[in-house]
């Protein structure tokens, strides 16, 4: 459906999946102010969520928001729709859409099709389209024969076509859409073939394909391209195209070099050392930035110039379609803010809150009664960088910026850029939004030159307070973040399934199944515990901590949970928390609880805790668990030799415990015995081949020994098992740089596993 929308450039999909009496629909209607549309938002949470991946019809049915299956009806027909699409219903729309407005009163698409069939028959064995008649008909004919050759699987034969007098806009439009269309109808063909076909088509229509070549089909940011193409259909014509297109291309190119924009900045300043030097040269301190800014624009220059630009611009023609979404986003952002002030973790994890906050972040947009995945969640490159910093809070500057940009789409960027050429069209909402964002503070800040010394610099303060505010909201520390698409929601017994998957070592799948379980039974301590353990093995301590905290809430005395929390906090270098949980382990132990003096403080003293554990170990030297906790405690106090001894003792009692082998290895690695560490990790991996954490640790060991090439292979293995292992991705990037493999950094940044796995097999 997303694809159909993409191709047709129209919002003509029928609403589906809606159950008629949905109170959420009414609520959302009120909240989101979409009432201008005649239909009400019947199917809000149940409506299918579309991901704009294009050609993948095989992964039917993409599930909806977590939990929604149980309560709402779901669209059961994605497959049928895909097939329908291939069969050519929308293909007619496609051809249709090439007609300039005014010619569309041509008869229904079916009638047209019949007409073309007739033309083919008359044209004899060459199957060539009619070469005379009005340009529309010729064009349609060519496109239809392109389509049918695609369907028949034969190469498209170039046909001589008289000059059609297409405008630049039309050409652009044909170019973009034929590329997309070709990708669909020739989905099973190699990329070169598709390219060749499109080239042939474009050549016979006398359309220069150079733009396409500069901006290849599978660029690093396909979403960007798609968005761009979509926005094209809205623009259709206008001289702004070429400039804007070049800009997009440039954007793409620069992203191949992840620091491209900075470099570019440097180049523009004719200074090879880049922006930072530029500033340094001017004033020899960072305040130079502020000064040079001031020199150019005056104290309030930036803000006022910005506003000036905006006010010159009329409501853009392309703004309209997105206005509703923007408004909805603003509304939901406000709602999300209100909601997020409620600190109840249950509420924070609730489906409704997640839904609203996704809306507010532009990850979901409402369009024609359908909840769609917005482009914000697909943001890449620098936008991503912004976003990850902020962990999607509802209110920060960068976030806001990202959302405006991405959910509004390329449009605003384009207009912003083209406004320099005095062609503009930007909706005023954005301006308002921007001026609300304390642009004045910025300007003041710049004129104050506070980039230098003052430690109470208000800009930084502002930033800090916004950041800390963000920490108390949605996706912050300690709050579990659920996956967006979960096929296990609605599974009859996700707990059993999760345990089975965990046992098999399919960790990412197990996490999904267990998420489904804890969505169903939020008080299932064992479900949360296993989910936490899964994340720990998958090398994600943040999520492990979040899940373990929920497990602890449901069962405050579970020893495994307390130990896991201690271990994960140790990994995050959070000594105080780690010590607290490990000390609680002893307090809550049925056997050793007695040796703990009453009235323990909440910030225990490390050496005391170690002493108590040593007492426990003397009480029962055969208890491996005590030695494990001791090993972790010695890690905290950096007494690595003792830690190694404790883990080795524990291993004699529990030689099959793969996580114990990993703990031994990690301790050895952190005490600069990386070679021994590799042996221990290998033991862990022999016992559990899908142990992502051990793979990542293996990479770390090699990297810390300066063996970057080797480390890359292990990191790649880790991220291919768990593509969400952010730490491993970051380390991979560092190792690529150190191994002088900058050529693969683009693949790393776009998380292109295929390329990386091929390049770095293990």
């Amino acid at each position, binding site marked *: 459906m997303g694809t159909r929308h993409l191709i047709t450039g129209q919002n003509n999909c029928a609403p589906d999946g809606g159950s008629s009496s949905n109170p959420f629909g009414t609520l959302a209607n009120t909240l989101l102010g979409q009432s201008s549309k005649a239909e009400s938002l019947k199917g809000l949470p149940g409506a299918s969520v579309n991901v704009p991946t294009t050609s993948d019809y095989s992964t039917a049915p993409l599930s909806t928001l977590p939990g929604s299956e149980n309560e709402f009806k779901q669209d059961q027909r994605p497959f049928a729709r895909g097939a329908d699409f291939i069969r050519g219903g929308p293909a007619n729309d496609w051809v249709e859409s090439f007609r300039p407005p005014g010619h569309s009163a041509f008869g229904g698409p079916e009638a047209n099709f019949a007409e073309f069939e007739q033309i083919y028959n008359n044209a004899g064995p060459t199957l060539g389209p009619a070469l005379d008649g009005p340009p529309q008909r010729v064009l349609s004919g060519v496109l239809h024969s392109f389509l049918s050759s695609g369907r028949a699987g034969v190469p498209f034969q170039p046909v001589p076509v008289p000059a059609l007098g297409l405008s630049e806009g039309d050409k652009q439009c044909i170019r973009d859409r034929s590329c997309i269309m070709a990708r669909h109808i020739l989905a099973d063909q190699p990329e070169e073939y598709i390219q060749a076909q499109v080239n042939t088509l474009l050549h016979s229509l006398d359309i220069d394909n150079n733009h396409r070549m500069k901006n290849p089909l599978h660029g690093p940011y396909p979403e960007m391209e798609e968005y761009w193409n979509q926005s094209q259909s809205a623009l259709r014509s206008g001289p702004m195209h070429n400039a804007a297109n070049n800009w997009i291309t440039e954007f793409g190119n620069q992203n191949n070099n992840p*620091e491209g924009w*900075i470099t570019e900045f440097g180049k523009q300043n004719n200074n090879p*050392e880049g*922006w*930072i*030097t530029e500033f*340094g040269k001017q004033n020899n*301190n*960072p305040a130079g930035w502020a000064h040079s800014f001031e020199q150019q624009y005056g104290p309030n220059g930036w803000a006022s110039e910005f506003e000036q630009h905006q006010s010159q611009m009329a409501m853009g023609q392309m703004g309209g379609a997105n206005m509703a979404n923007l408004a909805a986003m603003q509304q939901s952002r406000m709602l999300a803010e209100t909601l997020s002030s409620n600190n109840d973790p249950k509420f924070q994890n609730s489906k409704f809150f997640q839904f609203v906050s996704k809306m507010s972040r532009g990850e979901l947009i409402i369009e024609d009664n359908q909840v769609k995945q917005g482009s914000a969640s697909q943001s890449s490159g620098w936008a991503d*960088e912004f976003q*990850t*910093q902020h962990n999607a809070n509802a209110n920060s500057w*960068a976030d806001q910026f990202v959302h405006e940009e991405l959910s509004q789409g390329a449009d605003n960027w384009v207009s912003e850029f083209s406004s320099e050429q005095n062609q503009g069209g930007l909706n005023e909402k954005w301006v308002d939004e921007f001026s609300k964002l304390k642009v004045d503070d910025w300007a003041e800040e710049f004129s104050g030159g506070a*980039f230098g010394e003052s*430690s*109470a*610099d208000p*800009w*930084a*303060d502002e*930033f*800090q307070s916004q950041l*800390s505010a963000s920490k108390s909201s949605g996706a912050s520390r300690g709050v579990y973040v659920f996956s967006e698409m979960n096929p296990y929601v609605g599974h009859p017994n996700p707990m059993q399934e999760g345990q089975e998957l965990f046992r098999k070592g399919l960790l990412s799948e197990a996490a999904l199944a267990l998420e489904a379980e804890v969505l169903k039974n939020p008080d299932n301590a064992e479900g949360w515990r296993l989910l936490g353990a899964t994340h720990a093995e998958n090398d994600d*301590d943040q999520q492990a901590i979040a899940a373990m905290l929920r497990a602890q809430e449901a069962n405050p005395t579970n020893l495994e949970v307390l130990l896991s929390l201690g*271990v994960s906090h*140790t*990994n*995050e*270098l*959070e*000594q*105080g928390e780690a010590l607290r949980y490990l000390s609680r382990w002893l307090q809550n132990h049925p056997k050793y609880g007695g040796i703990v003096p009453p009235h323990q403080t909440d910030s225990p003293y490390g050496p005391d805790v170690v002493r108590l554990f040593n007492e426990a170990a003397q009480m029962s030297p055969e208890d491996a668990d005590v030695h494990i906790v001791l090993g*972790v405690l010695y*890690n905290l106090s*950096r007494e690595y030799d003792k830690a190694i001894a404790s883990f080795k003792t524990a291993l004699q009692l529990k030689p099959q415990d793969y996580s114990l082998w*990993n*703990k031994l*290895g*990690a*301790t050895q*690695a*952190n*005490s*600069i015995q990386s070679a021994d*560490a590799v042996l221990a990790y290998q033991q862990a991996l022999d016992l559990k081949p899908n142990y992502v*954490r051990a793979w*990542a*640790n293996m990479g*770390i*060991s090699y*990297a*810390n*020994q*300066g063996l970057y090439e080797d480390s890359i292979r292990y990191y790649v293995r880790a991220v291919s098992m768990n593509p969400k292992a*952010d730490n491993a991705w*970051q*380390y991979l*990037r*560092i190792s690529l*740089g150190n191994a002088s493999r900058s050529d693969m950094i683009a693949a790393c940044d776009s998380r292109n596993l295929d390329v990386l796995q091929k390049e770095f097999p293990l």
Partner: protein
Amino acid sequence: MEGSKLKAARLLEQMSAHLATDAGKEIANKVGFVYQLNISPKKMGVDEEIFVVDLKKGAVSTGKYEGTPDASFTFTDDDFLAIASGKLNPQMAFIRGKLKIKGSISAAQKFTPDIFPKPAKL
């Protein structure tokens, strides 16, 4: 570094040990600058602790550098960790006011995640 509650202290302890290894020495040789780090637990400039990463000598110490460091950085504990682990690009941190730099820019540019060891996870 023993007494410090900062996460940075834990990483810098590991760095200190790592600089004694062959790989660590190679890094020190490649960079060869002295960096002073002013790290605060939560808010920049508040309750600052000062560390010196001396990649001329290959050593890490606490307290102000005697003399002039090639570059000094001011950030919070979390932001330092994010930079050291590659999560946050130093330029980005600078632009966003999360990092203040004093001193030589060419020295500052070599302050990257590459120079820090990566902690293994239990």
